[in-house]
């Protein structure tokens, strides 16, 4: 079949190919969303030219705006744009599957050997590491918000509400969003590049 020039792109991306690439990224993408997005950038853009830089940036933006893990959002979104619903389903599933299986294996090992005294030290160490990772993430995500008194107040407010009042997390998210609607009304309230930096920083609006 001759389908090579639909919207100036080469033949549509095969679902199996898509699955293959995402199984690989899903199995090798350590360290959270941003390192994974860098891997996906290499596979989708540099090696295969499946998406343009602008489309990739848009997918990262979707990942940041929409709830849920950023990389899963971005991958599903690109899958949908490449191959419609089948592309989205295959992308979503293939990306999650490797880490699901690995985590399941670790869980089984933990259930079996987690209580063994020799491993107490291991988990003590891991716990300290987790605290550091969370602190580092908060530092990376929070630093841009410190520049504006309003965002800094929202940050401290949410911290105290959760810590001292045990406020409901969903309620807090909604209240913070509503506060945002009240507080940020001028275009100047949205400095360019306010989003956390990804592997490919968002450029100005394309069109």
């Amino acid at each position, binding site marked *: 079949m001759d389908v090579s020039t639909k919207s100036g792109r080469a033949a549509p991306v095969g679902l199996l190919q898509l699955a293959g690439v995402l199984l690989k990224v899903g199995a*090798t993408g*350590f360290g*959270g*969303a941003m390192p994974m997005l860098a891997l996906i950038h290499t596979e989708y853009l540099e090696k295969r030219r499946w998406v343009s830089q602008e489309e990739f940036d848009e997918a990262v*933006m979707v990942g*940041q*705006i929409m*709830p*849920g*893990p*950023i990389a*899963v959002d971005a991958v*599903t979104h690109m899958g*949908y744009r490449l191959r419609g619903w089948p592309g989205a389903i295959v992308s*979503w599933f293939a990306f*999650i599957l490797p880490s*699901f299986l*690995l*985590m399941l294996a670790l*869980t089984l090992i*933990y259930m079996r050997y987690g209580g063994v005294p020799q*491993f107490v*030290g*291991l988990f*003590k*160490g*891991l716990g*300290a*590491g*987790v*605290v*550091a*990772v969370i*602190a*580092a*993430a*908060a530092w*990376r995500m*929070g630093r841009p*918000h410190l520049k504006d008194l309003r*965002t*800094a107040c929202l*940050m401290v407010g*949410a*911290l105290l509400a*959760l810590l001292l009042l*045990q406020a*409901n*997390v*969903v309620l807090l998210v909604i209240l*913070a*969003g*509503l506060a*945002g*609607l009240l*507080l*940020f009304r001028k275009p100047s309230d*949205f400095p360019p590049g*306010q989003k956390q930096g990804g592997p490919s920083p968002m450029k100005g*609006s394309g069109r």
Partner: protein
Amino acid sequence: MVDLILTFLKIGAFTFGGGMVMIPFIEQDAVRTFGWLTQREFVDAIAMGQITPGPIVISSVFIGYKVAGLLGAVLAMGAISLPTFFYSIAAAHQLHRLKTNLRVRAFLRGVGPAVVGMILAAGVIIAKASLVDVWTGLLALACLIAIVRFKADTSLVILAAGVVGLFLW
């Protein structure tokens, strides 16, 4: 089981800002409200989620398994990831509006810092459970410096912390 599915659907639907944001959500629901796992197990689950590749949400597999075995693991992972799936597709149809709509951006500009505050709060709770003496405190500090100052890979840092712990205690 129904609680498990509903809780994880809810978490998947409201965690603006990426995987890390799930930590305060899961802490509140799975540890405090339902008591599905202890604080200790929760920290271990996050640690395991970090040293495996893929998104951090994967820690929900542990919780699902503990509540209802293999089926629970599948359901927890499916439920927490399902909202993401539909959001991403919806976003494809609203891309232009999302990019330009000031109200959407104002809402998210309010949510962004709040979510960081919530992550910090979860960090404090976890630190209280995990940093039990001077040594664990120093280890955490060393890890933090490695990540922030030297840009070390987070999964490697956690793994290294575990190995240090293995020899130290």
